């Protein structure tokens, strides 16, 4: 069978299920075209979003370890995410379990008490294998580079994106902490650029690609986060970009959804379209426009993709 799909575990994370369905939908559609059938681990929960930095708050490792254990129970040894936060938490959890015997022991002690109830049959499962930190966690950018390969992507392109002058925005979680967590050199990354070039975009250099957007400070210190986001978008503009590509739903929130706040704080700001890398991938692979969820964006990305803008102009 030519069209036999390869099964692949996919952990979407909470935000993709509700607030950024455009990221989720474009990922699913693209992966389907690339020949994968995506499987979500059964009963997945939130990963915790922030990896606990306190050496003694080990409970924060339980949820991500449980998710990864479920992947293992389902017979798989790898899982991919598109959300940078989820990627970071899952990958760091693995690292902690592999390198710190005390954390390994304590996390598995928590997980030992799990009870799973099948609501139909009322059967209880109380025996689970220990989780050793050995399910490989990929970010989709890595998965494309290392497993799918740019050659395959290039051979399947349906649309020409060369008119799109774009800058990649890595943010924090893909690159840092440096070392094993980073998908590339923290201060000299190229993976995102390579991806964008291989789907046909015109990629520009951009010194703010690894600066922080303000992350969760948009709740606790909104002005600070707004300024950080503004600086990023301003630099993208100065370097000649038509749009910013990213992978993180929180960066997307700060850089796109909050452009109204940026506009209030910085009057000269003229708006900058922001796109998920999967939206660009899907578009390049010929996916129809409605799957991309472009209407969810605050700053209209239609013209960037060469589509007539059907929405109201917000900026």
């Amino acid at each position, binding site marked *: 069978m030519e069209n036999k799909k390869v099964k692949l575990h996919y952990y979407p994370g909470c935000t993709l299920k509700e607030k950024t369905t455009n990221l989720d939908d474009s990922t699913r559609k693209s992966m389907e075209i690339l020949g994968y059938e995506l499987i979500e681990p059964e009963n997945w929960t939130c990963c915790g979003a922030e990896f606990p930095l306190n050496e003694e708050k080990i409970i924060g490792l339980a949820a991500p370890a449980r998710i990864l254990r479920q992947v293992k129970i389902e017979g798989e040894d790898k899982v991919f995410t598109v959300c940078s936060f989820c990627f970071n938490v899952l990958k760091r959890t693995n690292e902690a379990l592999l390198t710190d015997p005390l954390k390994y022991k304590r996390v598995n002690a928590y997980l030992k008490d799990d009870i799973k109830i099948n609501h139909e049959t009322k059967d209880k499962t109380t025996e689970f294998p220990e989780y050793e930190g050995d399910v490989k966690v990929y970010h989709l950018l890595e998965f494309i580079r290392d497993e799918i390969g740019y050659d395959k992507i290039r051979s399947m392109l349906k649309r020409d994106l060369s008119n799109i002058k774009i800058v990649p925005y890595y943010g924090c979680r893909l690159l840092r902490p440096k070392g094993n967590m980073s998908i590339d050199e923290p*201060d000299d990354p190229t993976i995102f650029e390579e991806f964008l070039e291989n789907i046909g975009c015109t990629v520009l250099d951009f*010194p703010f690609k690894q600066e922080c957007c303000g992350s969760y400070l948009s709740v606790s210190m909104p002005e600070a986060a707004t300024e950080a986001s503004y600086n990023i978008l301003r630099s993208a503009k100065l370097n000649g970009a038509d749009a910013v590509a990213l992978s993180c739903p929180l960066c997307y929130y700060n850089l796109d959804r909050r452009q109204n706040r940026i506009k209030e704080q910085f009057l000269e700001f003229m708006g900058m379209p922001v796109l998920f890398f999967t939206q660009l991938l899907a578009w390049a692979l010929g996916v129809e426009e409605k799957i991309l969820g472009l209407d969810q964006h605050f700053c209209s990305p239609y013209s960037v993709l060469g589509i007539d803008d059907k929405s109201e102009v917000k900026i």
Partner: protein
Amino acid sequence: MSNNGKKKRIGLFVCHCGVNIASVVDVERVAKEMENYPDITFSTNYVYMCSDPGQQLILDTIKEQKLDAFIVAACSPTLHEKTFQDVAKLAGLNPYQVEIANIREQGSWVHTDKEKATQKAIKVVKSMVEKVRANESLDPIKIDVNRRAMVIGAGISGIQAAIDIADHGYEVLLVEKDPSIGGHMIQLSETFPTLDCSQCIMTPKMVEASRHPKIKIMTYHEVESISGFVGNFNVRIKKKPRYVDEDLCTMCGDCEEVCPQVVQDEFNMGLSYRKAIYLPFPQAIPGTYTLDIDSCLGMWPVRCGRCKEVCEPNAIDYDQKEEIIEEQVGAIVVSTGYDLYTMKALGEYGGEKYDDVVNGLEFERILSASGPTGGEVLRPSDGKVPKHVVFIQCCGSRDPENHNPYCSRICCMYTAKHAMLYKHRVPDGNATVFYIDVRTGGKRFEEFYQRAVEEDDVLYIRGKVSKIFQEGDKIIIWGSDTLTGKKIEVEADMVVLAMAMVKSENIEDLLKKLKINTDESGWLAEAHPKLRPVESLNAGFYLAGCAHGPKDIPDTVAQASAAAAKIGDLFAQEKLLHEPTIVPVNEELCSGCGICVPVCPYGARTLDMEEKVVKVNEVLCEGCGACAAACPSGAAQQRNQTDDQIFSMVKAILKG
């Protein structure tokens, strides 16, 4: 081994050391009890064995008692072993027939129980009797010295070392891989803290070296291999083809004019261009053009051949081939210098992305009167005069986490110099320096730094820069001022990075040939960090200049002269003497397994494939005994510390 089967007559002299030994160890009892020990023909005790009467007592006793060997039970052998060996020599005994039983530092001084300390002393003495009984009489191994030296690397350190050795009256080969001698120093503009022009002080040195009758300059040469040992090295040197006859070339420059190939000029750090056939710089020594074959279009006349056509003296010779030259030398100076850490490694500073972010050597060329801008400060991107230059110290230094752990030592001073020279050239410009600490521990260094701050208005900001990027035609620097606790953002026209000094690129191959160790950062390791700072542990090799670690010009020159003086010491000896307590091979027992060969850290042992036995180079063997412990057949035995000696000593200690 007994003396020709004859039993040795061994004497024992127990020292009181005043009360130092006698108050704890019953010295009389030691002497008394040992009287009956096998081969002890004489045993006595005396208050100070090392005193004149004590030594006389030994001397007289050797003669009267016809002793073959003797033991002094006294202080540690590190103190008076030599004293008593000299006594033996006076009496006509071989110094290896003397052993010291340490009953003070490792006896009376560390124990309080008199009975136990005395018993221990007796056992120690017995073990020494066992040892001396089997000691061979040995003479130092004598080696001839070839009184010629080779200096590898002809920067300021190599040139200085060569001149000094030659002034001692010895011949020197000065080997340099580049087309000219001069190294990095000839690239510098002015030198701290005197601001004298580097070329003005360097060029006369280069000329002196080239004119010295005892110095043979070998530029465009590389060391291919080395064999032998101190005093007697055989060196194979590769002569790279220059395709220009040094003697015929008149430096007219006609070839350069017609050469169609343009490449970046290394001497100007890539800030200007040269042709494929080129003179590295006007004062180059030897004064000859060199054809850089990697950039040349190809030397068949059909393809280009223009340089050959125009060369009046017919100096260009396309048929030159690589040659191997063999030379014999007795000592080698390694002065291979340094390189700058690559800016590529600092992604957060743009990693070579921005034209106007330059390293220290590039800025030297920009400042230099002979440089690409003729000494005017113009920035590389657009040739404008930069009005605000930011200098950043510790780029890649003092960073054990990401780059190099050490301090590069000279950056504080050359940054102050750069800022000062920039201000002298552009008086209405601003110079700002980001630093962590300013280290000015040299003669007149602190005064120089203060002058930069006070008289030339250089602003020093204490904080390490985190990021540099370009915005329009400005370079933006994100730093911090840790003194006020503020984050600092600067818009500058140009940035100079004080890049760390690192070991020379691709030096590993050469060091492997020389068998010289390095530290973890790749700098050459000295034999002792304090007492032998210019020698390598590998005998016959001497270190000079930055190959050994970052240093400034005066330190480099001092070390080069010190290395030359050490070589003078070596060459002044008629024969070299080598400790004879080495590990030879008993060829009868050797099975040729070769296990000992890789165990030897000095390469003293080789497996003779024809005879199927291991041969030992006595001169290279330092006598550690590691091979003796590894030898499965007992063929490798350390002289005067054979397995049999160790066994009998152990037995005397435990059963005695």
